[in-house]
Each structure stands twice: as C-alpha cells, then as structure tokens.
C-alpha cells in the first residue's frame, strides 16, 4: 500500500459516521414544489433534482471521486420510505454500538421541515395502513420481520453492461423503445411511456452529476499548486466528462464509471446496500490488458486505483434504521460483496491477472467494505485457491468462499439460462443471483422457533396471551411426535400464507408508488419491457422469505422427540411448566435437555423440507 492509499484508508477509518440531512432536505424541497406528473417521472425528477444540487466532494489525494453525501461518512436518510423520528435520531446519536453523530442542525431540519412533511406519507406508513390485523399481530409478536418497511427492494448486482456502453447509448435505447410504443393496441403503452421517460430523466441526471464532478475537478486543478496533483485533477476532470455518458476507454475510467453508477443506485433509494460490481476482475480485465499492452498502465497503478476504489466503498455507511431496529440491531455495515474467480459466460475458467490483483488488494486493505468472496469452480487453477487461502488463514474474515459450480446449479434450477447463471454469483450475505438481470426481493426473516412455540401453546403467544395462530390442538393430548409435527406444519403453513399475502401487497405498493427508474436502466430487461425494476421489469424476479432459527428448532424438536415421545422420561406437562417458568426451579429438566439429547439428524432435514415444500408451493406457483 503506497503513501496515498495509506492516507486515504486511514482517513476512511478515522472519520466518524454522521447523519446528513442533505438528501432528506432536497427530497422534501422537491416534493413540496413538484408539479403534477406520473409517479415514475416524479421519482426520476426527484433523483435528478438531488444530483443537480447536492454537494460535490473531491477529497485530497483521491483518484476515484464521488461521495453519496456531502463528505465521507455522511449518511443519507430516505424519508419518503421511512422517516426517522427525533427519538430515532437521539438513539442513533447515543447508541453504544456504531453510532451516528446527529448535529443540532440536522435535528432542527428534521423537527421543522422533514418530519412535518413526511409524517404519515412515507412508504412505511402506507404499508402498515394496508396490512391486515393478522399480519400486524404476527409482526408485533416477532413471527416475521418485514424488510421493505424501512428499505426499498433492490438487492441486486451489476453485470458488464456499463463497461461496454455509456448512458448516452442507454438513452438512445430508451428513445428507440419510446418511438416503438404501440398506442393503438397496447393498453399499457402510456404506463410504459412514463417509465421510459423516467429512465431517460434518470440517465440525464447521472451524466449531469458526473459533469459537475468534472467541473469541480477543473476548478480544483486551477487552484492546485502541486504539479503532480494538478495533473491528476485534470485527468479526473477529463475522465468525469467522459464517463458514464460514454463507455469507458481505460481501466481508470472503468472504475470511475462504476463508481458513479454505484452512487446513483444508493442515492436513488436505500436498496439493501448489496449493490456491487459483481465480477469486477472479469469486467476490468480487458482494460487492464489493453493498458499494459499499450504501456499506459502499470501493475502498480492498476493496484493503486483499485485500492482508491476500495476506500470509496468504506466511506459509505449503511443508512440507519428506525424504531426498535435502530435501538437494538446496532445497524451494521453495507453488504457490497465483490465476487472473484468463478466462470466466464462460455463456461471456461474466469480467473485472470486482475483476480490476483483484487486478492492482493483485499489482503492489503482489510476494510469492512467492500466485502469480498471467491467463487471457486473446479475449473479454476489451484493457484487461485492457494492465494485466497493465504489471505483467509490470516483470520480477519475475508474473502469468503463459495462453490461456484453449485451456485450455477442453483441458478439453473431457478430457471436462469446457463450464460446468465455463469455470470451470476453471490451477493449481500449469501444470496445467489444473475448479475445485472435479476431483482431479488428480500421480504424478511421468518422466525421458525416462534412458530413452534405457538404450537406448544395451541396457537397462543405465551408472551402476551394473545391468540395469534391456528388452534392446532393441546400438545398434552398428542400421543406421537408425528402428531406434534403435523401441528407444526399446519401452523407454519398458516403463517407463511399470512406473510405472503402481506408481501404481495407490499410489492405492489412499491411498484405503484416507489419505482426506481435509475436502477431499472441497469438491470435487464427493464428498458426492453418498459417496466420498472420494482414492478417485475427484471428478466428474473425472485422473492425470498428467510427462514431463521433452524438450529434452535432442530434442538427443540430433537429434545421433545427423544425425551417426551421416545424415552418418555419427560412429560409434556413437565416440559411446558419448565418453559413457563423459563426453567427456574427446573434445573433437572434443563440439564436433561441440554446433556442427554442426541442429535437426531433427520430432525433437521424434516422441517427444512417442510419449509421448502410450503414456500415453493406458495411462492413459485
């Protein structure tokens, strides 16, 4: 790591995160004076409005430019999705883990301008107004969470399109599709027109944003006294006036083009922060090879640029949550997770020289963001695996390892084409997807042990005494494990239905009120279908409910099956009493369950299979 990178990295690590009201203020300003237009066009105009006005920030010494907020670690909020209360801001400011400084000015802006405008108007308000009493009771009891009450959908990853084409070309595409709309026969033609217009406005917005960076770099260059830095700033100005309007010509331009796109996505909405360049090594390789061959790029320069690029990710904290999630989850980091290795679209080994460069950068930078993983295929060389293993063994947690061949298999099973599957990978935590072509909608965690707890209480929540679920029978009356498990399946099925009914409404609410035209430009086939990313415009649309607590559920089922039904050394009455007392005064029962329960392997596979059977039946129909 050279001196420049060391300084940039250090600054990124030392700067404290703070809440910036810039986006919330601009958004409020825009909506106060917004004229009458279709929803997608209004969203696009809001996006452009922000990019025309937001602060432009070029940090000393950096080579890749652009921040989401007005400075590194400025953290945006998204009041149109979910508006922080003053209490939320106080919690974020004072919570012990990963706090966000909240200045009196930000608090003031919220109190006097932002909250008064958005109160009752956010997506969150809309969602809760539309959910059934059953859904709300289950949500309150912690049976499931709902991701989209605070974040927009958009857990997705980019493919190679921005390295081949500039936004002017995307605009040409959009105009093409606009010209071909069939107003005579297609009853959706108007809707499509508005969506396409919205995409065009968003594309213009990002070009304008880059041009503002070019201007700023020029300005700084004129004032700069250091000759070397002056030249760098001139170069930055030249790059920013070329990308992302046009396709990148060089390695440096490729990285800068991606970074503008990244900022566009995370400024438009707070899309689960999983957005990332995906197969960065493969996207960069042609530029790298060309630069080296022409003598315009050295390996050291390529690495330095990549490290400057890394710092940009780490400068963007995750947008913090509201309510109990803000208070208790200690909102973590972003989830940009860069994939290396894997396969090429034609099925051959995807590892190249940039892959090793990326691994070196991971090793040297040791930053929380971006996260990194290797996609390990049997077609990859051992050198790749060894190099990654040498980093992993240092023990700081990156890169993670995925079986690329299994990932491809999984994507194929979900119906993706083989080429799309090979160019896919994993993102966020572990979610697989077809990069640049898929909308993965994460709907929330589903608490499996809680469902079982309801079964043990015949549908009542022992915490509140409220009836939440079906009456699946008094467990004291069950004469076999099969009966108990059948009751569990019934209760599980019931709540999956509750969840899915809610999700179906929430997804439509996003489609109708919160389209994301900028992201739609980036994900195939939104332009071709003239449909928004949040409205099924992507080539592949996947919904997830994330079942959690499988370990606890397995332990629970094993214990009950073994002791209550097989060994009969514990009665259901005794067990329920112990649970009611949280094991106080029942140490023997606790020790029995803890120490004398064998791991029943089939016990884990059975509920997992039930989970999948239900989910696929309900969702993939």
């Amino acid at each position, binding site marked *: 790591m050279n001196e420049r990178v060391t300084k940039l990295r250090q600054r990124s690590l030392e700067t404290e995160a703070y809440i910036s009201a810039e986006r919330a203020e601009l958004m409020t300003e825009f909506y106060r004076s917004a004229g009458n237009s279709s929803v997608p066009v209004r969203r696009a105009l809001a996006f452009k409005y922000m990019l025309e006005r937001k602060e432009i920030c070029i940090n000393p010494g950096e080579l890749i430019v652009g921040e989401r907020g007005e400075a590194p670690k400025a953290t945006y909020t998204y009041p149109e999705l979910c508006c922080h209360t003053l209490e939320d801001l106080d919690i974020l400011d004072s919570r012990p883990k990963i706090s966000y400084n909240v200045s009196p000015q930000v608090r003031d802006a919220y109190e006097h301008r932002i909250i008064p405008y958005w109160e009752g108007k956010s997506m969150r308000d809309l969602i809760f107004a539309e959910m059934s009493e059953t859904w709300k009771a289950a949500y309150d009891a912690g049976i499931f969470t709902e991701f989209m009450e605070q974040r927009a959908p958009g857990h997705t990853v980019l493919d190679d399109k921005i390295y081949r084409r500039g936004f002017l070309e995307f605009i040409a595409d959009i105009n093409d599709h606009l010209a071909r709309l069939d107003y005579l026969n297609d009853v959706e033609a108007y809707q499509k027109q508005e969506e396409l217009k919205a995409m065009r406005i968003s594309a213009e917005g990002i070009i304008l944003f880059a041009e503002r960076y070019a201007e700023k770099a020029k300005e700084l260059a004129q004032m700069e006294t250091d000759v070397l830095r002056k030249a760098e700033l001139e170069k930055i100005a030249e790059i920013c006036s070329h990308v992302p309007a046009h396709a990148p010509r060089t390695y440096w331009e490729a990285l800068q083009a991606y970074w503008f796109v990244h900022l566009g996505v995370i400024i438009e909405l707070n899309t689960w922060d999983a957005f990332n360049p995906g197969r960065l090594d493969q996207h960069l390789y042609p530029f790298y090879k060309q630069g080296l061959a022409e003598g315009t790029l050295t390996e050291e320069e390529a690495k330095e640029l990549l490290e400057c690029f890394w710092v940009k990710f780490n400068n963007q904290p995750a947008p913090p949550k509201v309510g109990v999630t803000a208070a208790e989850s200690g909102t973590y980091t972003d989830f940009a997770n860069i994939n290396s290795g894997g396969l090429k679209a034609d099925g051959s080994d995807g590892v190249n020289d940039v892959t090793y460069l990326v691994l070196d950068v991971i090793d040297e930078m040791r930053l929380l963001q971006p996260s990194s993983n290797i996609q390990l295929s049997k077609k990859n060389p051992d050198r790749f695996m060894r190099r990654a293993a040498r980093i992993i063994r240092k023990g700081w947690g990156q890169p993670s390892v995925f079986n690329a061949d299994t990932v491809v298999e999984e994507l194929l099973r979900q119906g993706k084409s083989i080429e799309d599957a090979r160019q896919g990978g994993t993102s966020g935590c572990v979610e697989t997807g077809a990069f640049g072509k898929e909308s993965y909608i994460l709907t929330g965690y589903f608490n499996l042990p809680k469902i079982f707890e309801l079964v043990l209480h015949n549908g009542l929540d022992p915490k509140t005494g409220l009836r939440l679920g079906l009456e699946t029978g008094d467990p004291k009356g069950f004469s076999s494990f099969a009966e108990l498990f059948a009751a569990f399946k019934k209760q599980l099925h019931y709540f999956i239905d509750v969840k899915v009914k809610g999700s179906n409404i929430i997804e439509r609410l996003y489609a109708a009120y919160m389209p994301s035209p900028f992201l739609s430009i980036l994900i195939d086939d939104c332009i071709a279908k003239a449909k928004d990313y949040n409205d099924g415009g992507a080539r592949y649309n996947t919904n997830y409910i994330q079942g959690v607590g499988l370990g606890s559920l397995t332990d629970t089922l094993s214990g009950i099956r073994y002791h209550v039904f097989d060994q009969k050394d514990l009665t259901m009455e005794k067990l329920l009493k112990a649970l009611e007392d949280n094991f106080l005064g029942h*140490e*023997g029962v606790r*020790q*029995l369950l*803890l*120490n*004398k329960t064998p791991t029943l392997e089939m016990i884990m596979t059975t509920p997992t299979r039930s989970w999948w059977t239900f989910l696929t039946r309900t969702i993939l129909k």
Partner: protein
Amino acid sequence: MVDGQIINIMKYSIHDGPGIRTTVFLKGCPLNCQWCHNPESQRFGQELLYRPDRCIGCGLCLEVCPNGAIIAKSGNLKFLRDQCQVCGACCQVCYAGVRELVGKTMSVREVLAEIEKDVVFYDESGGGVTFSGGEAVMQPVFLLEMLKECRKKEIHTAVETCGYVNLEFLQTISEYVNLFLYDLKLMDSQKHQALTGVPNERILENLSWLVKNHSRVIVRVPIIPGINDDEENVALIGEFVTSLKQGQELHLLPYHKAGVDKYQRLGRTYLLPELQSPGHERLEQIAGKLEQLGLKVKIGGGSK
C-alpha cells in the same frame, strides 16, 4: 459377529493418518504407559468418569444406586468409588453430566454406519478410518470384521498399534489394513517394562515382521521429555528402524497434557504431573538426528 468395546468415535480427526479421518477408539490396552493421555482407554470393560464440579445436587443418583456407592453427607453428595460396581444406573439419570460411563458395546454394523457418514470427507481429503485405542488389535475378531467391511466399501483403513500383540493377529489383519501406525517408545527393555508395564522384545520383533511384509507402515515415536528423548534412546531407535528399512517413514509425536484431567475423573493419580511438552527446537533436533540416519521424519501425526 463379535461386538466391539468402543470408547469413542471421533469425527474430523486430522492427526491419526492422512486426510480427514474418523478415529474409532477401542477399549483396553496391554500397556500402561505412565504418560498415557487416554487413561480411560487402558482398562477393558466399562469405567465411570466422575466430574463433581458439574453436580446440581438433584439427588437422583442417590435414589438409583443399588450398591450404596453414593451417600448424602451434610447436604452434599459423596461418591464412594470402592463400593461402585459400575452398573451405570446413576449415569442414566445424571442429566448434569457428572457421571458418565466410558466404554460401550457396539456392533460392526453400528460402527460402520458412523464411519460411512463421512465418506465424502475421506474421498475429498484422501482420508479414511483409523482404528486406535487402547489397543485395537486386542479385539482381533471385531477388528478383522470391521476392516473387511471397510475394504468392501473401499474406505482407507489405518490401524494404530502399540505392537505388544500376538504376531498371528497382526498377520491376519494386515491384508485388510492400508496403513499401520506403529508406536515405538523406548529401546531399553527394562526401562520399557518399568514405564509401560511390559518389555519391548515382542514389539520390536513384530515391527520387524511388519516393515518387511507390509507395504505401508509409519513408525510413531512419542517424544516425552526426560523419559525417551535422550540422545541414546533416539539414536537406538534410529539405528533399529533404519536396519529394518532404509528411508522408513517415522513421525514424532510431541507429548501434551490434554489427558491429565481425565485421571482425576477416573479416580486415579497421574504419576507425571511435572511433565511438560517438548519445545519445537528440541523436536527439530531429534528429527534432524533421525534424518541423518536415513529416515524420513515428520513432526506430528497427520500426513499425506
């Protein structure tokens, strides 16, 4: 079919032969090494492990013990090991894990089912199953059955032995063993007798036969500071093994204290409490010396 007396089946073992292995520990050993780190493996038949620190005072053991080996004394439970007939009734009811029977009877089929669960790991890592102990060869009929079954399933087999066994047994099983891990401790037979309970002539003779007649033997020498790491013993071991086969593979296993607590749980006294693990430097010296004699030496027990 004869059942086996098993102490434990350990998954993901990487120190008992190549790759990822499942190690089956058989109970009972003809030796009584003072430094033994698995004292519960020495005796044949079941034993009771006792960990009073875990006791929650529920008193269930008191109710079920038919031999009066547990008494309540001023609110505490006291264990009279002399009275204990190792019937295991108390272990059945001891939920807190204070009382645990070590040693269980398992059929060939049961053990095989456990081994087969990890075949995918053996295949991927070049691993397999290791029969250890105690002394695995002391249960020759069971062992032979196990080995034959593993061969049928194409599972790589290793047998770890102290060598103090009937040569005929060794000869009978050797056809079904892919790898012998053969322990060699002390060359002085009197000292061997004093510290392990038996002389070493038979061990040396059996090793001679095995090295000459079996394709894959690794000699394993535990390095126990102050007991067998002296220059003379090291040199004698080196000379003896080289005389059997030039370039013979030999592994040095550094002594460790992991088993010391178990003596207390068994109601026994550990005779070598002062003993420390050998330093890496010393191990390197010994390895260097043995290599000079023409042996292929490695420190540690896992290998390819």
